[in-house]
């Protein structure tokens, strides 16, 4: 549905987006990750036709966003960053306007408005002015606007920003449900959202794509992926590290915690261990009182940090 090829955008001499290519099919929810200022919003603004690209192309449902702007824009629902809405209108007036400009008239318009009001829980504020709404409600009003014409493609720029935990959960559920029938791109810097809603994620940094895969694949890029965590009781930490270091599959062992006789260590595997490490560690530790033994799946925020942190910052952190 969405095809982005070598997309670039320059503001003056600064290249905000620099040669980004990817595609999103129907039934996919693509998470767009990256630090602030990485080019997420700029990319989304080009996909939705707000900013013309400096180079590269975007096609939505086969229509080029520059050449056939109107046809392409019809297919898209867009929630811009900070969820802008006309402050001088009521929620009802605003949604009716959005429906009308999307070409919905008469009964179709009434039904569409009623549907999104129900989906986004806007019933209680329907006749309130947008200006007086709390941030969460304003956000949902703008979100409602983006799905009012039941679009095939949804582009959501930080859809959960400013919502409370319950609302965040609702929105993620909604995205996930809608993602079964639509092509969705949403940006976030909350990594747990990737697990909660995405089928695939892209990490973008300084205008370039630095990682692209399912959340599972991305997690495996983590240093911790495949490591084994062990907690034992009543053994000195030096004895634990000494013994585990002799296990052939282990590359190195670090102590995570050593308190009141409970020792927690993490063992990193040599390459090509293929998950046999937990078994080996378990055997090595069979004389001790094991409280916990776990294979680590890897954590997204570690991957995110190691990929997107500038090299100097990485050295400082180490």
């Amino acid at each position, binding site marked *: 549905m969405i095809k982005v090829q070598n997309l670039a*955008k*320059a*503001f*003056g001499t600064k290249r905000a987006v620099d040669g980004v290519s990817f595609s999103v099919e129907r039934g996919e929810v693509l998470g767009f990750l990256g630090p602030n200022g990485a080019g997420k919003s700029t990319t989304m*603004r080009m996909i*939705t*036709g*707000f*900013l*013309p690209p*400096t180079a590269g192309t975007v096609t939505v449902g086969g229509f080029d966003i520059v050449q056939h*702007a*109107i*046809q392409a*824009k*019809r297919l*898209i629902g*867009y929630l*811009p*960053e*900070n969820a*802008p*809405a*006309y*402050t*001088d*209108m009521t929620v009802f*007036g605003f949604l009716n*306007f*959005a429906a*009308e*400009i*999307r*070409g919905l008239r008469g009964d179709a318009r009434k039904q569409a408005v009623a549907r999104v009001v129900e989906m986004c829980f806007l019933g209680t504020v329907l006749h309130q*002015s947008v200006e007086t709404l709390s941030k969460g409600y304003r956000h949902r009003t*703008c979100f409602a*606007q983006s799905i009012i014409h039941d679009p095939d493609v949804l582009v959501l720029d930080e859809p959960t920003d400013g919502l409370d935990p319950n609302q965040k959960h609702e929105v993620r559920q909604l995205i996930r449900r809608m993602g079964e029938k639509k092509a969705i791109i949403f940006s976030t810097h909350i990594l747990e959202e990737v697990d909660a809603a995405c089928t695939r994620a892209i990490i973008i940094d300084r205008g370039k794509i630095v990682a692209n895969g399912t959340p599972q694949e991305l997690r495996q890029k983590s240093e911790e992926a495949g490591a084994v965590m062990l907690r034992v009781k009543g053994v000195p930490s030096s004895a634990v590290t000494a013994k585990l270091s002799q296990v052939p599959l282990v590359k190195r062992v670090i102590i995570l915690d050593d308190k009141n006789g409970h020792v927690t260590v993490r063992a990193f595997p040599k390459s090509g261990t293929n998950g046999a490490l937990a078994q080996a560690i378990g055997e090595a530790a069979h004389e001790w009182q094991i409280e916990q033994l776990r294979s680590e799946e890897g954590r997204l925020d570690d991957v995110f940090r190691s990929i997107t942190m500038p090299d100097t910052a990485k050295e400082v952190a180490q």
Partner: protein
Amino acid sequence: MNAWRNVWTITKRELGAYFTSPIAYVFIVIFLLLCGLFTFFVARFLEAGEASLVRAFFDWHPWFYMFLVPAVGMRLWAEERRVGTIELLLTMPITVWQAIVGKFLASWLFLGLALVLTFPMVITVNYLGHPDNGVILTAYIGSWLMAGAYLAISCITSALTRSQVVSFIISVVVCLVLILAGYPPIINFVEEFFSARLADFVTAFSVMTHFEGFQKGVLDSRDILFFLSVIGFSLFTTSVILRTHRAG
């Protein structure tokens, strides 16, 4: 067909925005007060003993509009940019032109409404004497066209900035220049120190000169064309500004 539906949707929204905020009411009240005040107390309409609105009433319009029209037009694009709704508007399946025309039309209709609300003047003058109502009608048409020209200029300045104040000040200055280009003292000055041909050239750009014909009851196609081309040119410039602004 579809294009005009989109334009009308935008126009309806903008008109609604005027009337849900105090702008509309403040504007109409002040406009009507100024009209009454200047006609009766400054121009001494009643003492003049002339059954005509031309001098006493319409002569002030270029000056009122200089302040009032930029106040109506300043929010058109500046507000969209400040709040960020421009991103919503321009990602809807409409063209930039439809948005520009829709917004312009809403403000122009609103100014037309304010003008229509001066109808008690027409009733008064008809009650007191026997004016030439044809002249009054053409003067109204001219006044509305002039308001449109000012408004289109305000559209440009509004698209240039996200600050309504900046937009207001710049368009007041531009409107002032358009008035002064036909103001007799200025014209005399140009004629005296430069040449009569330059004076003619400058006058051709003035709203005063072109409004005068309407005040005399003449619908000159050149005058109509002048105002329409100022509107057309300004709206075109607005579209260029909106495009370059996004091109980064």
